[in-house]
């Protein structure tokens, strides 16, 4: 279970560029739940995933995972519990190393690295078996540099790497946004399969209303660094793409109202 309590994060505090990316976020995710996050640009979705993953340290609040308070843990230490796939296909793999080497590195996520061989014969067989499961014809390209593969292939492999050892939490930040529609579909299907099969606790950010309406068992909407809507249970099942679009329209109109109000105040007081 992931528990996020009162988390705040401010960028460039005390400068004219100050951004309050997270303004008190509370979120509790049950074990095995698949949560999809949507929200306007700059609403803090990536920041939320980054503070959970440990890429960013928070200003205040508490984050605990599987009953452990991980708020102060550095990123590499959290990786023992968390698997991640990034938006950029280049971020999740070491391009100059082979497919097999990348996978074998991931097969020890969070475990000590010592002087045993990275790739033994038994390991290679296991790798080939798991890669065959992707049905991307990559099992014969295990010795190719992973940088020579397409974005979709790399994202599929990164997903495999992130879940090789079952993580307590899987973080996906728009992991199909940089792909062409066909590859994106492939990676999404794969995501759904793996999450379903392994019963993974998952936090996924997406910009695709289609993905948001069809994936996961809970839907969270963010705006200006806050959670403004949380659909679960029966309500989540009823939610359609049109409902989401309508909700976004509400938010946009409210923002405009805010702006006209601010404009009015400025005219009155300045």
């Amino acid at each position: 279970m992931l528990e996020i309590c009162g988390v705040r994060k401010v960028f460039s505090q005390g400068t004219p560029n100050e951004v309050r990316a997270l303004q008190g976020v509370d979120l509790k995710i049950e074990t095995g739940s698949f949560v999809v996050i949507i929200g306007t640009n700059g609403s803090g979705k990536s920041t939320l995933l980054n503070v959970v993953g440990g890429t960013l340290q928070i200003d205040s609040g508490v984050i605990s995972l599987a009953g452990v308070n991980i708020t102060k843990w550095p990123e590499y230490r959290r990786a023992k519990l968390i698997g991640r796939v990034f938006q950029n296909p280049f971020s999740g793999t070491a391009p100059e190393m082979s497919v097999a080497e990348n996978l074998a590195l991931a097969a020890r996520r969070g475990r000590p690295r010592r002087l045993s061989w990275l790739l033994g014969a038994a390991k290679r067989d296991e790798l080939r078996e798991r890669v065959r499961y992707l049905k991307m014809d990559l099992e014969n390209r295990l010795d190719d540099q992973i940088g020579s593969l397409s974005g979709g292939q790399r994202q599929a492999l990164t997903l495999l790497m992130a879940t090789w050892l079952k993580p307590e939490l899987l973080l996906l930040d728009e992991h199909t946004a940089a792909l062409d529609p066909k590859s994106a579909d492939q990676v999404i299907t794969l995501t759904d399969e793996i999450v379903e099969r392994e019963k993974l606790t998952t936090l996924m950010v997406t910009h695709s209303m289609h993905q948001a309406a069809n994936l996961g068992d809970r839907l969270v909407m963010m705006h200006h660094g806050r959670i403004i809507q949380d659909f679960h249970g029966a309500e989540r099942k009823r939610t359609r793409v049109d409902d989401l679009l309508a909700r976004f329209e509400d938010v946009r109109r409210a923002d405009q109202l805010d702006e006209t109000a601010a404009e009015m105040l400025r005219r009155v007081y300045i």
Partner: protein
Amino acid sequence: MSLLIGALTIGFILSLLALGVFISFRIFDFPDITADGSSTLGAAIAAVLLIKGINPVLASAAGFAGGFLAGGVTGTLAMKFKINGLLAGILVMTALYSFNLHIMGKSNVPLFGRPTLSSYAETTGMRLLGRSTLRVLGWDVTVTEASTLITAFVAVLLVSLLLYLFLQTNLGAAMRATGNNRQMIRALGVNDERMIILGLSISNGLIALAGALLAQYQGFADIQMGIGMIVWGLASVIIGEALVGTRQVGMAIVGAIMGSVLFRLLVAIALRLGLDPNDLKLMTAAFVFAALILPGLLKNIQRRKAQALHA
């Protein structure tokens, strides 16, 4: 002939330097200039221990250990204290100058008549062959030269094999991945800062070992001997990459060794043709500069040509 053998021997010894530079510059993309200090450190430690009558293999190993520590300090300054990598190297290199003087007690430590790896090689060669000159391909070669060359070659073979095998282990692969994509390796649970510190330690250990062997080959350690080492190492690595044309680990290691040997041959030829030894470092620096900008320049020319064709 002895000029050729001398160049080959120094080439092999300094290929350990090239391997060290390969680790810092190529694997980690870390411009580590600790090398100038750590090579002298290795030479100084080995020389002082040899004077004390310590076994040459142990003395060389101690040189490696000294460089290993120095690299660790540079890595720690850069990672833990967030000092710019170049500056961290300069700080340690500068500090090592005083440190090395203290170790040696003076600016030059001669090794006349002391048992060194070179003298070991010589006596072993003499005992095996029972004479002091050989004829190789119609040339007279002293057994001293030949056995020193073979010793240097075997030492490099051993060290580079160990390095290659190390880079195939879980730890070594995590180090390579750190150099390739830090974000990825952190997300896989590796402390990337620790990997860089360890990598710089190994890099400078190798460089110090090169210094220790060089001191034994030339028969003295000198406080000035490290100056320009980093550029020599870079030149070898660049030549090596051009020779093998790949950065795949095994080939890159072979390339660094070949590059170092070829570079030494080129230097020997240039000196033979009358290059002023004082200009050697200038020429090397110019060469590295050219090698660094040439690929980009060539690409530009090719693009212009292509554009001209389209126009």
